[in-house]
């Protein structure tokens, strides 16, 4: 991951800028290892909103199937680095996590650390 980050400093910078603006945080306070859910406290709707901002900043569309890859800031940067390469390889991640297909809930008793309600949906 790190080698790809070094190759694409402008992608990294734009991701940090976009995330910092959305999260209202100083981009310097963000780390590649930060988990969108567990460290930044994003629930599934907020993750979708963040992806929306990233799509806008990078002028591309991120399909539902790729949501599963976007777990950390570093993963987002890696994903965008690959998507924006001229020879860009198409990525297919594990199970998607948009609202329609958000991760299956776990019983409250077994709930893992989360600062906000995360990855659930109601329609």
């Amino acid at each position, binding site marked *: 991951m790190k080698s790809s980050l070094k190759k694409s400093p402008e992608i990294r910078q734009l991701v940090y800028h976009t995330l910092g603006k959305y999260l209202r945080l100083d981009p310097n306070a963000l780390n590649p290892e930060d988990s969108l859910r567990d460290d930044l406290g994003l*629930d599934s709707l907020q993750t979708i909103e963040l992806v929306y901002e990233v799509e806008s900043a990078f002028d591309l569309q991120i399909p539902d199937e790729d949501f599963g890859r976007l777990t950390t800031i570093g993963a987002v940067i890696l994903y965008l680095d690959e998507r924006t390469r001229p020879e860009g390889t198409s990525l297919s991640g594990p199970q998607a996590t948009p*609202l*329609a297909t*958000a991760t299956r809930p776990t019983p409250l008793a077994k709930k893992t650390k989360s600062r906000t309600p995360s*990855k*659930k949906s*109601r*329609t």
Partner: protein
Amino acid sequence: MAARVVITGLGIVSPIGTDIPSFWKAALKGQTGITAISSFGDFPMESYRSRVAGQVSAFRLPDPSEDKFSSRVDRYAQFALAATREAIQDSGLDLEQERAERIGVMAGVGMGGMMMGERELTTLYQSHKPHRVHPNFIPTITLNSASGILALAFGAKGPNLTISTACSSSIHSIGQAMQAIRLNQADVVIASGADASITPLVFAGFCSLRALSTKYNDHPDQASRPFDRGRDGFVMGEGAGTLILESLGHATRRKARIYAELVGYAATSEAYHMVIPREDGSDIARTVNLALKDAGVSPSQVDYVNAHATSTVVGDDVEVRGLRAVFGKRLNTIMVNATKSLIGHTLGAAGAIGTIVSALSIQTGIIHPTVNYDDPDPHCALPGLSTKVQKKSVRVGLVNAFGFGSNNAVLVLKKFS
């Protein structure tokens, strides 16, 4: 003692039938009304992530000589007018003989007049001519345009409310209609639910929310698959459903045919998240228990559930979790079906259509099949759900609806005796 409330008339506009007989016939055959969206005018559909919906293609506006109101309102209210006209006719009510002040209207509406809303907005922004905004724009997009036009069309001068709780709107409208009769505010209430918002902007909004099915664009009839392992989001639908509710005394005096008795209602908030249900289903269970308590029946008496079942991974899971908390192992023996597998999610109409289905099942003892239940998801297993028609007497049925805004609502229907 509060009046007992009975259902005496039904009317519907749906993707699989624009009247009760054609809808019920199609539902029992497991006919799906989910099709590809042909176009949004100039918008190429390829730019939408989801491209399927439950569209009402058979609907025709009535002749102006029969109905001077439909041409003045948005599509959703046109649906409500048509469904209500059928329901009143079905009920045998002679409105000329009724006291108008004792007839109420409760309409459940999720999105409202979005068709005209989007059209006028586009016109204004493109033309920059405010004076070209249509004079009927405000009366059309005001959210109570359906309940208002129903009152005008049918001369109902009793309590008139619009309830907007997203996807649970019309369970609330029926529940509040029941309460109005219980409180002796009305003898008859037209309880309706309607939505028709498969429009460029609303559809794009649900796409952006990543709430819609996207994997079955080439196989629209397979897109809505509640409780199936392959489900990947809900399918938008449109339509309307109307039920005529009456006090038992009023219905008995005029020797009305009674489909079922409406005996219980509960409305709660999870106070949790605008679009995400509480994951353990505890608030759904609480709502079901409150509705059963209101009905004066025990969980052991329930033998049918018309599930909310939108075909989202988590929504279906949580609903079953909530039902299992109430019924335990007995849930395996309760008949369940998912009307949205046939017609998609009609938003504000969904609860009314689910209640219509339940009333018909109580009356006929026939449960419509749930389609696309090809690979049952073990996480939300429902042995009582079938891809085939089930024939069994239904004495007590539940109708569930849950909506954005952290809303839950449940109705309890009972065979009339």
